């Protein structure tokens, strides 16, 4: 409260300008007629047209969506079980190991995760014959593994905050452990699981490094295609793509906000 006067508002404004100026310019120049991304050549939507005709980009987007959906779902299942195990079961052999394995991916550099998983897949293929080559499956496994860690963290904190007497009450009223999980625990932590799933989905959709290592021919994800394009310099159809993503995110956030507000009213 005490850094009064102009200092804080000015710094805060500059901070938000810093955060949003690049995004705004990205959107503005996606409507630029000129190929030069930074010189205004009149309003045009031609880059959106080119984007929609870009088969490589479209199929990569489709691959990314599939990967993100599958790996987020898998990560949510693994993460929920891991979180439940860690919060609800008293000591068991290997608890420390499990704790380590769910927290380590959070601090693991992507390059290491990517490389080590690739080497695992190659070794497994040599020894077991599975997975045959690399592609969608290996990317899904890789993404599910590191996303599971994030889901675990979210689910764990919700499970810890949850009033355990709810579960005890259900037990007291005659429900078995499995029944309690599905009747009480799961509904209570569902909002956390949804946000965990969304986070995993976003992380998967966003990942370039891990996917570059473990993906194979025909399974290029959207970030991989964008990266190879961007490396060669700026191109306006990437701006168009960015604008589309921003619009989708804005709509999704608005809907989520409205849903959340309705949820609050319900309780």
């Amino acid at each position, binding site marked *: *409260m*005490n*850094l009064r006067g102009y200092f*804080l508002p000015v710094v*805060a404004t500059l*901070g938000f300008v810093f*955060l949003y*100026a*690049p*995004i705004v*310019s990205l959107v503005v*120049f996606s409507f630029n007629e000129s190929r030069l991304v*930074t*010189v205004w050549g009149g309003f045009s939507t031609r880059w959106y047209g080119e984007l929609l005709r870009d088969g490589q980009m479209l199929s990569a987007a489709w*691959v990314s969506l599939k990967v993100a959906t*599958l790996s987020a779902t*898998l990560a949510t299942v*693994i993460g929920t*079980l*891991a979180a439940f*195990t860690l919060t609800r*079961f008293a000591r*068991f052999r290997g608890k420390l190991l*499990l704790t380590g*394995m769910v*927290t*380590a*991916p959070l*601090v*693991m*550099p*992507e390059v*290491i995760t990517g*490389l*080590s*998983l690739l*080497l*695992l897949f190659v070794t497994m293929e*040599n020894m077991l014959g599975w*997975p045959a080559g690399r*592609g*969608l*499956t290996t990317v*899904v496994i890789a993404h599910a593994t590191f996303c*599971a860690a994030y889901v675990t963290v979210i689910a764990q904190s919700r499970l810890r905050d949850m009033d355990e007497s709810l579960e005890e009450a259900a037990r007291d009223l005659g429900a078995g452990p*499995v*029944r309690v999980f*599905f*009747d009480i625990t799961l*509904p209570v932590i569902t909002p956390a699981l949804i946000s965990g799933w969304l986070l995993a989905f976003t992380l998967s959709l966003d990942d*370039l*490094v891990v996917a570059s290592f473990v993906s194979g021919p025909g399974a290029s994800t959207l*970030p991989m295609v964008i*990266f190879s394009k*961007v490396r060669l*310099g*700026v191109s306006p159809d*990437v701006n168009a793509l960015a604008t589309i*993503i921003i619009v989708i995110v804005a709509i999704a*956030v608005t809907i989520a906000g409205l849903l959340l507000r309705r949820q609050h009213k319900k309780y």
Partner: protein
Amino acid sequence: MSAPDAVPSASHAPLYRRLFLIAVVALALALRFDLLTLEAQTAGTLTLILWTTALALIALEASDALGISRRWLVIALPMLWLFVFFLVPFLVLGRISIAESMIARPPYSPLWERGSDGSLEIIASLDNYRFLLSDALYRNAYLSSFRVAAISTIFALLIGYPLAYYIARAPEPRRSILLLLVILPFWTSFLLRVYAWIGFLRRDGVINNILTWAGVIDEPLVMMQTDLAVYIGIVYTYLPFMILPLYANLVKLDGALLEAAGDLGASPMVTFLTITLPLSLPGIVAGSMLVFIPAIGEYVIPALLGGPDTLMIGRVLWDEFFASRDWPVASAVAIVMLVLVVLPIMWLQSVQNREVPK
């Protein structure tokens, strides 16, 4: 929220479960023998999910039949998954880091070879590590990664702290909106946000255009492909990770403490230095870790914004793997990174976690 009605009651569970198991296995077999026409990639993933489910259900049946506690089943799935896909890879990584690079598929020497006389010969050497030590490139890359990550973290803190403070002290409707504005960029593509800075920093980019137009500069500034660009990229990308823990800490700060300090004669600045700052230290540490950790292994930002001489260890590893195709050396680089960077950070975090629950 009402309980899901679809959950079978305990007495019916085995029947439902068996039917479900049969369906899962049937579907998996159908996929195996190409009775369903699906794209190969999708089919592969689906098969994986189906077999995992089937295994879990079979384990459930078996445990019920044998009277083993179901607890272990719940533990087993995450445990096995993470063991196979997280822990084992590091063993493989270690094993390949002591192999020799060779032109083959895969491009490294096997762990053992049968000699001409049928004897078993183990091929392992620390040559790759010796190579890392002897070549200044790698040492510099490690050092410069630390430097870049540390400097970026400090800048992120300097920018993030006032922002977090401002948001935490804002009145309620505005506070939520500002917080949302901080989180929002995170949901858009990271790659595209870095890309946006190329348009800003280029020779004919937005910044140079504005400065030239305003008459501040005659010659465009060189900003792309410099360390400065990398700092900007990292700070920009990871700023929300700095702000959120700081905000979470500062918003909990008890206003009465600040009033008490004021009441005892502390000026606003002294109150900030003696009360707010020390109390927000956990937030500062948490935020700094969240920026420093991804920054130190960063590949994309130095690759897109940095110059050819911006050495960062993530980039060196990437080039070693993709450009030189030297898998053993790349593995050795990764192992060293693991030991020098990841293990200390994990140790630090576990120490911190032990301190928190007072």
